[in-house]
Every structure is written in C-alpha cells, then in structure tokens.
C-alpha cells in the first residue's frame, strides 16, 4: 500500500543508496539527491538491479519491484526537498560538507521537515546548530549494508525534541528497522562499544601474545563471534575501521581506551586495506 510520505535522501553512495533502497521498497516516495547527474543515474541503476535480484530470488514480486523503482526520483537540486517530511543526509563524512547541506536544507525545507544525519562520527548537536531548527535535527545512523543490518541508531542532540525522536523511531519502524535511541556522544552506541573488539585484538597482536590467526580463532570458538576481529577488519576495510577509531578517540579527547594502533595505521598507509585491495591482515590474491 502506497504511503503518501516523501523522504529526501542526500548522497547516492553506499549508505545513501541503501537508505533509498529500503525506503522505496517500503512504499515511501524517495527523492534521491546527488551533485553529479551521471553519478546519480548510475547509482539509481544499481539500486534497480538490486530490486531485480530480489525478484529473481523470489523475495519481491514483479509489481512490487516496478513500484519500488518508480518510488525513487533523482534530483540534483536541494530546493526540491521543500515538501519532504524527512530528509536523511548521507553525504561524505566531512563536517564542512554536512554543515553546508544542512544550512541549505534549513533554508529550503518546510518548517515541519525533520532533518536527519546518517553521520557516524560527528556530533548531531554541532550539525543541528547550523540550522534554525535544532529541535528538528537528529541522527539516524544506519549500518552497512543497510538492506541487511536490522539496527538504526536514533541520536538525540542537545536541542533535539522528543517529538522529533518519536517520529524518527516511527520512520525506522516503517522501513522495517529496529530503532534504538541514544544520546549524542562519540561513536553513539555501536561504534563506541565495538572499539575494543578491534583495538584490543590489535594490541594483543602487537604485544606478540598471540597471532592474528589465533586471535580470530579464539574469538570465534570461545566467544561465538561470526568473524574474528582481523577477518572483520579486512571485510569492513581497514581504512574505514581506522577512521572510526580515530574519530571516537578524538571525540573522547584522547582517552587511552580508544587509542589507535600504529600497526593498523601502517596497513592504511601501505594501501593494504583488506579484501577490497586484495590483502589486509590476510592475503586474498588468488
């Protein structure tokens, strides 16, 4: 059943595309923004092919697939977000870029539009402060890959109203996610509490107490984790993992609990980033 709600999504990269995909699949209108027209249309094509694959797998009917595709409209103008009930920003993780987007959105959007950021590393309060509606600005942090990960963190900035939080929780449920609300603190819940899984594993390896193979095996057998900390870094991308650690470390003003590892930094500097570069902690070349 078609729902008469329009959602703006800013950025058609991995996270923005994922958010657009699940939103369109749940019969909401999506206005997907990106700066470059060509990038946008190729990313929309990629979303369409993911819908086609869902049909092939029998997880979606032909009709649902066509509707979902129709639900996504491209735009390169932020002005077109004016009538959206919600806008979810998933632009690159650069604070100046995000501030510029929020300033513009605040100018062009109707007064009831709720502006959410998918940031994983910046303060929602800081982003909200650039607008004249900090009560209607919040975090809506999805996890990669968006279509598969059930969680969404709804982040309450210093001035975010409870009504805004309630509406974003409803929106999360509408797109079949499990919303958890939290305060605006570095790394929110997941990226903060998960840090020791990587950082302490790196420190144990650095101290030559156990090999990376041993650590991965022990965490899977004794802990029941699906992947060991080093396999998982290779999958996520060692650069992405390192950037998250640096950001949380900075957010806590250098608290040693979050101190990054030079071993991890060396991998990033060498471009040995994990599966995507053919090698990381393990070698993936054939």
């Amino acid at each position, binding site marked *: 059943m078609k729902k008469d709600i329009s959602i703006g999504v800013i950025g058609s990269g991995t996270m923005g595309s994922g958010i657009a995909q699940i939103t369109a699949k749940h019969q909401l209108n999506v206005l997907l923004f990106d700066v470059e027209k060509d990038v946008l249309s190729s990313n929309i094509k990629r979303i369409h092919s993911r819908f086609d694959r869902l049909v092939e797998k029998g997880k979606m009917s032909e009709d649902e697939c066509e509707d979902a595709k129709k639900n996504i409209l491209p735009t390169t103008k932020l002005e077109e977000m004016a009538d959206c009930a919600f806008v979810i920003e998933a632009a690159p993780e650069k604070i100046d870029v995000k501030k510029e987007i929020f300033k513009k959105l605040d100018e062009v959007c109707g007064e009831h539009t709720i502006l959410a950021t998918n940031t994983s590393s910046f303060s929602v309060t800081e982003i909200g402060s650039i607008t004249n509606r900090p009560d209607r600005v919040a975090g809506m942090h999805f996890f990669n890959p968006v279509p598969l990960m059930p969680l969404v963190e709804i982040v309450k900035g210093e001035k975010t109203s409870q009504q805004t939080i309630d509406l974003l929780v409803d929106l999360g449920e509408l797109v079949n996610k499990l919303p958890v609300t939290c305060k605006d603190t570095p790394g929110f819940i997941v990226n903060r509490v998960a840090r*020791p899984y990587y950082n302490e594993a790196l420190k144990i390896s650095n101290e030559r107490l156990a090999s990376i193979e041993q650590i991965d095996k022990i965490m899977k057998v004794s802990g029941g984790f699906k992947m060991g900390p080093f396999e998982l870094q290779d999958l996520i991308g060692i650069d992405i993992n390192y950037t998250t650690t640096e950001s949380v470390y900075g957010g806590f003003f250098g608290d040693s609990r979050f101190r990054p590892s030079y071993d991890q930094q060396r991998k990033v500097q060498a471009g040995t980033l994990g599966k995507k570069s053919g090698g990381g902690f393990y070698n993936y070349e054939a």
Partner: protein
Amino acid sequence: MERNQAGGFIIMKPSTDQKTLYVVGSEMIAGSIMKDIEKKGFRLATKEELERERQNVDLVIETTCLDLEKKKANLQMIEAAVEESTLILSSVLSISATESASFLNNPSRLVGFGILGSWEEAALVEVAPALQTDEEYLDQVSNLLSEFDKEMEVVQDEAGLVFPRILSLIINEAAFALNEGIASASEIDIAMMKGTNYPMGPLAWADKVGIDNVYSVLMGLHRSLGEERYRPAPLIRKMVHAGWLGEQTGKGFYET
C-alpha cells in the same frame, strides 16, 4: 564470596585409574569444573583427604582470581600439600602465569589457563606457560584437556589472555556507556546484536560470565600493565562490592 561448600577445596578422584585431581578456589568456574568431573564419574572429596592422600595427587587446578593475596596463599598452601613435581594449572584471568609461578619454590610446574564463563561450555581453553614453565608440563595439560574433549590454544603469558581480555574490555565500555546514560542496558545490548552481529549483548554477557570475573580481568590488566585504558568502569566496581555479580547472585545488569 565463599561459595565453595568444601571450604575452598574440591578434591576429585577418578574411579577407574590412579589419577587424582584437586580444584582449589571459590569462583564460579571451580563449581563448573566440579560438575563436569562429576558427570564423568569422578568422585568429590574433602580437604582432609587432600592431606591424607597427597601421594596420589597428579594435578591441582587453582582458580582464585580477584584476591591476589589469597591466590598467593592458596598456591603456597598447595605447594606445601603436594609433591614438588605436581602440575599446578592456575587461572590467569587477573595475574600473569609468570607472577603466579614466582610465588612457588618450584615455579617450573605452573601453567596458566583462562576461561571466562563456564568450564562445561568452553570448547577451547587458552593456556599460557610462565617464563619459568618446563615444556613437559604443557604436555601434561594437553593430555588432560583432551580427556575433557577440549581444544587447547597455547598463547603467551599476560593477565586475561585473549578472549577474557577482549570481552572484558567490550563489557567495560558498555558499562561506561550505560553509566553515562547514553542508552539503557537493553538498548545497548540490542544495538550490539543487531548493529554488529554480536552473539549476545555485552551486558547480558557480563551477567552470564560473572561481573566479578570481568572485574578481575580488568583489575589484573590495570595492575599488570599500568595503563589507564584498563581502568574498570565505576559501575562494575560498585556492582562487585554490592554483590551484584549477575546470574550467579540473581542480580546484575538485569534481574534474573
């Protein structure tokens, strides 16, 4: 925290061969080792028997964690009660095997082990030789663990080893976040299970493995390595003092 009905001594004796095992300690794990041995048809005996049958002792398992003075006293008492060559398998959740071995006149027969959680459920046991340990004792541990159908992983010696150390730090961070009011215990647990595929939420996990054990690992790392990084969350420290140790006492981060 004296929960061991045998006054800190549980003596297990196999019914078929000559091998005799002793477990010393009052931690949750001492109880779970005892249960496993019972299942395998071993006999539990008393402290008096330890003294009377000292000639037959092949192995002592020692599990003291939090109170290191007591651990030292227990290890020295064991040394006085058993033969000089008897293997002592000692829990190193909160102290290195090397430091534990230093309490003994014959440090070469001490081997460290670490399990966070129950002995019965552990498919793998991390084992760490002290710097002073003789190789032959590692072989004895290997033989023992295969009798219990447990896999042995030999790692280098440091308090908390690998899994207890990493899990305790995750739990510590979850406790800091809870104490700072970032979200509720169940919200934190759900987030970790649904946002990054953890098999259990860290706070429910703490209740299961024992908050006293998590605190022991953190205190051991903090004391041994001297780094602020390992400072236990104030909430964990207070819960241990209040006797809120998780499932074993019916109250922890959750009520059970």
